């Protein structure tokens, strides 16, 4: 078996608004339009990924929040209705998701060996979180690739950003080693926004784009700073600045997804391709892919 590799890592934010505005048949609510910059950015990223011929999506999701370690989906198939608990008016999605259980188990075991608390989730009634579904759907709407789904251990809230990053980097190393051992070509998805202060009101027409903008200027400045780091290939600087970014931009990177992604990519010193930046109810979102030079991280 040849050595597996991470062929790309992506920032793949999960606002349900993007699926809502895309009007896929699986989603019950229908939209007129909305958030085109981000949706077109996802289109560009999909084309980029299509050329890479990958086997599996590995997603780290802020919306499966676990306070006792890191959990992994551990059954071959999950099929149900996902209703967003915050935007049920926008997202009621019939999903049918296959899991690469072997790869999940190997990441889980290697992370445990590294000292993390890890758990395989094997309850067949479990509902997959909407963040995973949105990020996977926007990245691969055909749903023809198996998924490894990794929960977000909430160690930022419990301890500190520093502890979160320490754990996320250990999980990243386990992920990379497991992918390499699997012989598979993996695309990694960090399913998080950048700045994450929401509006607490919603327009009568949710896709009314005249109402959409960043929550405040400070959030925008932080988003642009992070994006410039991405564009200039300064992966390590992003991790270094993560405590300030999370605190001051109320960033969803507190979930550990972005740190995990950058760690698994080996702290990329090459540019990420920013396919789009846009806001969703005031939060800042970027669609980004890092494709390692030479084809694999």
């Amino acid at each position, binding site marked *: 078996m040849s050595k597996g590799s991470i062929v790309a890592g992506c920032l793949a934010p999960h606002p349900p608004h993007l699926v809502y505005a895309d009007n896929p048949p699986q989603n019950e609510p229908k939209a007129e339009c909305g958030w085109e910059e981000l949706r077109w950015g996802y289109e560009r990223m999909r084309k980029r990924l299509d050329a890479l011929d990958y086997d599996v999506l590995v997603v780290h999701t802020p919306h499966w929040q676990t306070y*006792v370690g890191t959990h992994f989906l551990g059954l071959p198939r999950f099929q149900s209705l996902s209703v967003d608990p915050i935007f049920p008016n926008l997202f009621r999605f019939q999903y049918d998701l296959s899991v690469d259980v072997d790869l999940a188990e190997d990441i889980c075991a290697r992370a445990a060996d590294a000292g993390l608390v890890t758990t395989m989730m094997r309850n067949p009634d479990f509902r997959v979180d909407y963040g995973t579904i949105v990020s996977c759907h926007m990245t691969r709407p055909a749903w023809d690739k198996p998924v490894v789904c990794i929960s977000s251990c909430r160690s930022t809230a419990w301890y500190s950003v520093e502890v979160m990053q320490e754990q996320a980097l250990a999980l990243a190393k386990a992920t990379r080693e497991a992918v390499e051992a699997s012989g598979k070509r993996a695309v990694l998805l960090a399913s998080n926004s950048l700045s994450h202060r929401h509006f607490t009101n919603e327009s009568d027409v949710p896709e009314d784009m005249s109402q959409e903008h960043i929550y405040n200027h400070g959030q925008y400045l932080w988003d642009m700073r992070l994006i410039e780091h991405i564009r200039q290939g300064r992966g390590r600087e992003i991790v270094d600045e993560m405590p300030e970014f999370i605190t001051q931009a109320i960033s969803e990177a507190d979930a550990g997804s972005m740190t995990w992604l950058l760690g698994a990519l080996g702290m990329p010193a090459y540019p990420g391709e920013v396919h789009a930046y846009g806001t969703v109810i005031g939060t800042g979102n970027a669609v980004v892919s890092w494709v390692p030079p030479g084809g694999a991280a």
Partner: protein
Amino acid sequence: MSHPIVKSVIVPGLPHPLLVPEQNPGWQQIRDGFEAARAEIAASGADVIVVYSTMWPSVIGHQMQARPEPEWVHVDDIFHGLGSIPYRFRMDADLAHAWVDRARGRGLMARAVDYHGFPIDTGSVVALKLLNPDNALPAVIVSSNVYADRAETIVLGKALLDALEEQGKTACAVVVSTLSNRLFTDWIEPHEDRIHSPKDEEWNNKLLEFLADGRLEDVAQLSRVIHNQIRVHKVVNFKPMWWLAAVAGQHNRFDGAVHAYAPLFGTGGAVVTLTPSASSVGDKEFDEDDVDVYRGDRNVLDGPSTPAPARASSTPGAPAAPAPPRDGGTVHAAAAPKPVGAYPHARRVGDLLYLSGVGSRTPGTDAIPGGPVRDGGGNALDYDIEAQTRQCIENVRLILEASGSSLDRVVDVTAFLIDMDRDFAGYNAVYREYFEPIQATRTTLAIQALPTPIAVELKVVALSGDVPKP
């Protein structure tokens, strides 16, 4: 009608007492505590159970569960290994919708949730399965907005009271929340469970001491301290006790019963009931404002371009409050007596300020200068119309100043007296002192009664402060 909340209940939301109580004596104790609370609710005569769950976070305002019969098989995000929880509940959709309407009327964003498959949170599922196992009572569940702080949460509670009073219903109010909320971050055997730290344990016991004494409002007043001492900061503040105190009447007159207290995977799980009572051990010093209407996000990070909310200013020489917006701007004057209904103190339309009827209660205490016109049994009392009229006009002044206007800008007055023969002369003398130089137009009417035991009320129209006098 007596107070619509006939019972207040605090329960934890972790699934262990529902799914595996036999694995730990403390979990069984909490399960038994749920049963004691269930029996109290059943005997309370309540029409509905209303659940505020800290485990249902929302972002867009607050959400009220309004699906008549939500049904699903629930699995907890963390404790999925304990098993699945099938449920089918009965909701009071009418009350949920009325609560949404009344919350919006008080300035909150709120919406009803009526979708098949909506993910009801673990805490609400556990509470309703154990407190209302046969769906004997319909329920309403409300979310906990992650950004909400005290003002929003108090107003949310008051909006529920509006809705209950409108529908003539009584309710048991249930808060789903642990006391200390620090979970273990590694798996433990059931027999290893304990409160995460001695500090958490000490604070939990202090809170339970307050609650056993029925001091709910005092616990609410401590919410910020609780948040800092024994809560992991997942949201902006610890708010369930604000909500519970708001719906229960913002006082300490309860008979408290701590039915159970035990560790739940490191957190402090307690089952407490509070029954309205005539007695009280007294209040701690109330150090926060009451609030009736929510006026939106503070935008504290937005800098000086963000307009400050209008505030009352009755201090001589203090800068005048800014005038409200020309079209429909409402004024809630913190320094004036609180309204007795869902209305602002004043509203601006064009160049004019229209004041709601202003009575003679003293701001802050609601005492009536010169005495009330009747006692609690409805018996007539002697009173001083001149003192009441003077306070009434001073209250008008407070509201006008909070609106950026002033008493000398009044253009029209309608006065209501409950006894024209007895009171006109005294009222008219005081009126002259204030209004003779102003020369506002005036109409005086005799009416049968006013909502509080006062003898005089004024309805005033004035020029806004940013409009030149004619």
